[in-house]
């Protein structure tokens, strides 16, 4: 066995392999306030650390991007019902625990204000300024009858599919799922 030859071949393989980028890809699947706070704190924090940040909103996560001011036309009855039942934007999200008919969520929001913790609205603005990219899962939107035209105004946001997210995740050095 020619170890030197093998070592050289292995070294070459390592050298040819592109390393992961200084990038974070996060899947935002959940639809609760606490989990969205965590997602946005991590996203803005990572952008501040000089990382490229990609957020992929899917399933229950997508409703957090709805704008309370915008409406989409051309929905059928079931899509309209989904629209009513799903939270219209991040201000309507509730805690995953201790919601207690709204009292717990209201209390957390009050405490956040008192302790000067940024609201989701403020963090979306910050994320936009830092160049955080948002992809909204096309299939989730289609399934629940949501449309891009009812989403918040955000500088780097468009709809995409799983391949877009996977391509980003593959290049990223950090991947999260919330």
């Amino acid at each position, binding site marked *: 066995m020619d170890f030197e030859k093998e070592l050289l071949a292995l070294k070459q393989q390592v050298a040819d392999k592109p390393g992961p980028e200084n990038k974070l890809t996060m899947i935002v699947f959940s639809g609760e306030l606490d989990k969205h706070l965590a997602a946005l*704190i991590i996203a803005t924090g990572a*952008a*501040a*650390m000089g990382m490229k940040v990609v957020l992929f909103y899917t399933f229950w996560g997508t409703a957090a991007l709805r704008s309370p001011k915008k409406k989409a036309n051309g929905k059928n009855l079931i899509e309209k019902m989904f629209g009513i039942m799903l939270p219209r934007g991040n201000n309507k999200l509730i805690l995953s625990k201790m919601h207690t008919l709204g009292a717990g969520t209201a209390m957390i929001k009050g405490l956040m204000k008192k302790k*000067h*913790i940024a609201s989701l609205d403020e963090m979306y603005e910050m994320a936009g300024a*830092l160049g955080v990219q948002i992809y909204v899962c096309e299939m989730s939107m289609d399934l629940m009858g949501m449309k891009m035209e009812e989403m918040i105004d955000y500088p780097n946001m468009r709809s995409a599919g799983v391949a877009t997210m996977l391509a980003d995740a593959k290049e990223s050095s950090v991947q999260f799922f919330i």
Partner: protein
Amino acid sequence: MADYEIKKTLDYKGLACPMPIVKTSMEMPKIAVGDVVEILSTDPGSIADFPAWARTTGQAVLEVKQEPGLIRIYVKRQK
């Protein structure tokens, strides 16, 4: 005592994690390479977070001073 000149003070008192780091990183392009800025924070997380941020972004934390109810962090822009 430190032998550097403070070019700018960034007042982030009252802000919670991650805002002191986020706002500092947004200020960095406005600071000349080699200049030192003072950051005022009341978030105890800043003591650990600024050195971690500097290590990752290639900046330098020269000093972290803790006073009652106030943290002063001195950051030098390296690049």
